[in-house]
């Protein structure tokens, strides 16, 4: 008993099915285009335009990367491309988004019902958690086709094909809640693909993924583009990773597209990107610094750069002993001058439901040291941080915090010595003004030490002194991050555990956060940091030491320049060295230490050749 859908739906469905069953027919042979001409869009009538002067054409078969600082309008553009503006997002919209196949009249997506627009342009959001609304993977992917009342065989085919395309066929029977972040992202993409849209828009699809997981998702998108013939629009901060897969790169600032070019040209001059607060690919920056060596187009991969720099001489005594130009507060990567142990785990093992998360892990973080904990999603990094904070009791082993045993479940007892910045800082915000948030300790009679700074001092330190009456949710993402950090600082902790602190932040905000930490260190005299992160450029820039965790075991514990000289081991940990470090390793034949930044790499050139 299936109700016959109306003819419009039927026609769309037929074309969509054709698209997924024989992708080449829809795009490879006859490319179709998605065009957005948006004069202006503001979320409130008469309000500040979030998008203006947009004229963007996406052709099926191309992968377009959209970059830009936070608040530049990237996500709003994605919503507009997917037809969610003005259908479901209120605001003042002037413009049109049209879909046109060869020889046909353009279809105005803004005039179509949302479910019909969704069969032209699919969208996945940054956080897959809230876009997976079914309990089980296959039910999630089948949800759209079932709603379209497709025949059972067609629904089954779409579920199977969509999951296969994203390499998630084996997950069909899995519960969504049991999936890792990367797996959830794949399922979200599969669910959008099951609607058979010729164009897919993805808002930061890799934000929670480790470098290897990121690469896997990007390969899937590349295949969707160049094998299945779909158009793919990716909003992404990780330009080093995504640039090699891109056909076009867009830079947005202030709601406008200011760059739209091939990735080999789009990033030059890099100063334009830095001014916008966006980090261009390292290799492009390197090529810009060395125009005599990079005579061809800027390289986008380490392989390309290696070819272009083949035969180049690098100083043998490169990094060791050179002044460290990193901004990390502890100076050179050696551990000299650091104090006794601030955080220490000895022989720690942890299991969850019979699955071993940590195996006999020992870690010592010295007072004043900044240690980066790296590894793949699910490798045990956060579990180790949780043990050190007292969130999780180890099955075996002990943990101490400044010489005192960590008391599990008694978190407030160590919270005056160590603070924990959660990945989602919104979970840490409880009050309705910035001032109230910073006065949390006093309002709730939490004992504060004699060194605890006054809320006003903290507000000044985090740069929110003029916004103390603002509602925390009215702040930008970067400001909320600073507020959450400031709230921790009101107890003057001597150590901080930072869980993925820069996820979703652009370069400017990420740098501002670490500049703030450096100021805090100066202000407090000493600050120990355990940084859990996937951002290797951040590690290269700020960490004194790198500890890599793989399947619950510490497999690497050394200074960054030595850690990044071990690409095979890093790869097994789900991690990739920064491009410049990898390039140095490749050119020098796997040296013991590698350069960590572009200036450092340039400094390694034999002077006569520099």
């Amino acid at each position, binding site marked *: *008993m*299936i*109700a016959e*859908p109306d003819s419009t739906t039927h026609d769309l469905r037929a074309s969509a099915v054709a698209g997924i069953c024989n992708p080449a027919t829809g795009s490879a042979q006859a490319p179709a285009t998605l065009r957005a001409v948006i004069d202006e869009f503001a979320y409130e009538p008469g309000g500040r335009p979030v998008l203006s002067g947009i004229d963007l054409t996406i052709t099926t078969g191309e992968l377009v990367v959209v970059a830009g600082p936070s608040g530049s309008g990237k996500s709003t553009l994605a919503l507009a491309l997917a*037809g*969610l503006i003005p259908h*479901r997002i209120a605001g003042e919209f002037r413009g049109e988004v049209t879909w046109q196949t060869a020889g046909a009249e353009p279809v105005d997506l803004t005039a179509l*019902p*949302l*479910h019909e627009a*969704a*069969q032209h342009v*699919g*969208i996945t*959001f940054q*956080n897959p*958690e*809230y*876009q*997976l*609304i*079914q*309990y089980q993977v*296959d*039910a999630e992917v089948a949800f*759209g086709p*079932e*709603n*379209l*009342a*497709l025949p*059972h065989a067609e*629904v*089954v085919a779409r*579920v199977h094909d969509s999951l296969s395309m994203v390499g998630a066929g084996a997950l069909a029977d899995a519960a*969504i*809640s049991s999936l890792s972040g990367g797996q959830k992202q794949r399922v979200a993409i599969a669910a959008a693909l099951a*609607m058979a849209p010729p164009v897919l828009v993805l808002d930061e699809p890799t934000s929670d993924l480790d470098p290897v997981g990121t690469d896997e998702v990007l390969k899937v998108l590349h295949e969707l583009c160049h094998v299945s013939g779909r158009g793919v629009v990716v909003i992404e901060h990780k330009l080093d990773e995504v640039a090699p897969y891109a056909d076009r790169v867009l830079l947005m600032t202030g709601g406008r597209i200011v760059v739209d070019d091939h990735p080999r040209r789009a990033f030059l001059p890099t100063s334009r990107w830095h001014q916008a607060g966006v980090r261009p690919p390292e290799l492009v920056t390197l090529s810009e610094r060395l125009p005599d060596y990079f005579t061809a187009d800027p390289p986008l991969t380490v392989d390309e750069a290696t070819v272009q720099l083949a035969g180049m001489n690098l100083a043998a005594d490169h990094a060791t002993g050179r002044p460290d130009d990193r901004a990390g507060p502890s100076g050179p990567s050696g551990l000299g001058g650091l104090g006794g142990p601030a955080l220490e785990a000895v022989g720690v093992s942890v299991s969850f439901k019979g699955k071993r998360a940590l195996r006999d892990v020992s870690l010592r973080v010295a007072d004043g040291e900044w240690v980066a904990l790296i590894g793949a999603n699910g490798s045990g990094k956060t579990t180790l941080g949780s043990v050190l*904070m007292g*969130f999780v009791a180890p099955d075996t082993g002990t943990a101490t915090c400044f010489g005192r045993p960590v008391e599990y*479940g*008694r978190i*407030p007892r160590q*919270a005056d010595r160590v603070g*924990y910045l*959660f990945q*989602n800082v*919104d*979970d*840490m*915000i*409880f*009050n309705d003004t910035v001032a109230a948030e910073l006065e*949390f*300790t006093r309002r*709730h009679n*939490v004992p*504060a030490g004699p060194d605890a700074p006054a809320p006003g001092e903290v507000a000044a330190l985090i740069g929110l002194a003029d916004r103390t009456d603002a509602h925390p*949710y009215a702040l930008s993402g970067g400001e909320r991050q600073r507020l959450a950090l400031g709230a921790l600082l009101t*107890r003057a902790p001597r150590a901080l555990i930072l869980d993925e602190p820069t996820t979703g932040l652009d370069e400017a905000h990420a740098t501002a956060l670490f500049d703030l930490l450096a100021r805090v260190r100066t202000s407090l005299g000493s600050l120990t940091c355990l940084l859990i992160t996937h951002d290797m450029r951040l590690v290269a820039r700020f960490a004194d030491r790198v500890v890599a965790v793989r399947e619950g075991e510490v497999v690497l514990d050394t200074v960054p320049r030595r850690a990044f000289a071990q690409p095979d081991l890093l790869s097994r940990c789900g991690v990739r060295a920064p491009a410049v470090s990898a390039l140095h390793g490749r050119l020098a034949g796997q040296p013991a230490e590698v350069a960590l930044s572009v200036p450092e790499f340039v400094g390694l050139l034999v002077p006569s050749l520099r």
Partner: protein
Amino acid sequence: MMHTLNHLLFHTLAGQTVVAYAITFLVPLVGPILFLRFVGLKGLRNVLSYEAADTAIHRLDPRLKLLYPIVITTLSVLLNWEWTDVLFGVTLVPWILLRPSALRVRVLAVIIGIPALLSIWSQGLYYTTPNDHLIFAYPITMAWVGTAGLSTAGLVYGLHQAGRVLVTASAALVLIFTTGPSDVVWATTKLLAPQRLGLAISVGVRFLPQVFERLNTVMRAAEVRGYDFSRPEKWWKLGQLWNYGRRMVRALPLLTVPILVGSLRGCGQMALVADSRAFGVNKRRTTYRRVAWTRADRAAVAAAVALVLGAFVVIGLGGGRF
């Protein structure tokens, strides 16, 4: 000594007031105390979760298992209390087949027992009939509570009602214990005509564990800021217990903000996703999943039909409630 105490408690206004306060406010606390002592939030999560096993009941069509508590609850309303107790015995048969662990039985007993106990207490206070015999008459100082006191008739009626609570809980927990969430969602959406209700249940099942996780995270975040949720080490120290209770109550609005904000943001995105996946476009959806009807399903239907017919015979013979 005893005589004096008896006099003070039952024959003075102050003593009667103290006893009345204890009956009114301390008895209901037994439920939460038993719950925290023997179950806890974590235990509730574990015990109310599906446990995969290869039993005949696990293999039954989820739709039958979804209908089972509905049918049993309906029968418990129609039967008188003696036969309701017999029905409770019937609902134990699936549990015998399932053979749950001793730990789970203990927790289940607490979960089922607490509502039954509260049912007896509340009916004892508020179920009134003409010429009630009051075991304890409330003094004038307790007039604001709205009851004359603890009545025999009320306690007996509460006992009867408790039987119905036990029957309902026993049947419902079989469903939860033996049916995977995806099966519950599927069965619900198949049995319920309104798509929106089906989606609401699906989203609820999907996000319930996440709400617990978020609650856990937000509590940790508050603890990192110095807010103390830890239970008093010596519970008999009333001062510590009082402070603990006060901290917990004060934390409610504190914890609600981030959870609510996160959930509302998530809801907005979920609505966008549902719309863009054509939700509600067609009155009838097709289905990806198909469940084959087995011999065990037919046997279960036969047993259910026999039970219902038997119940109607009993009702016809005067074993009904109405």
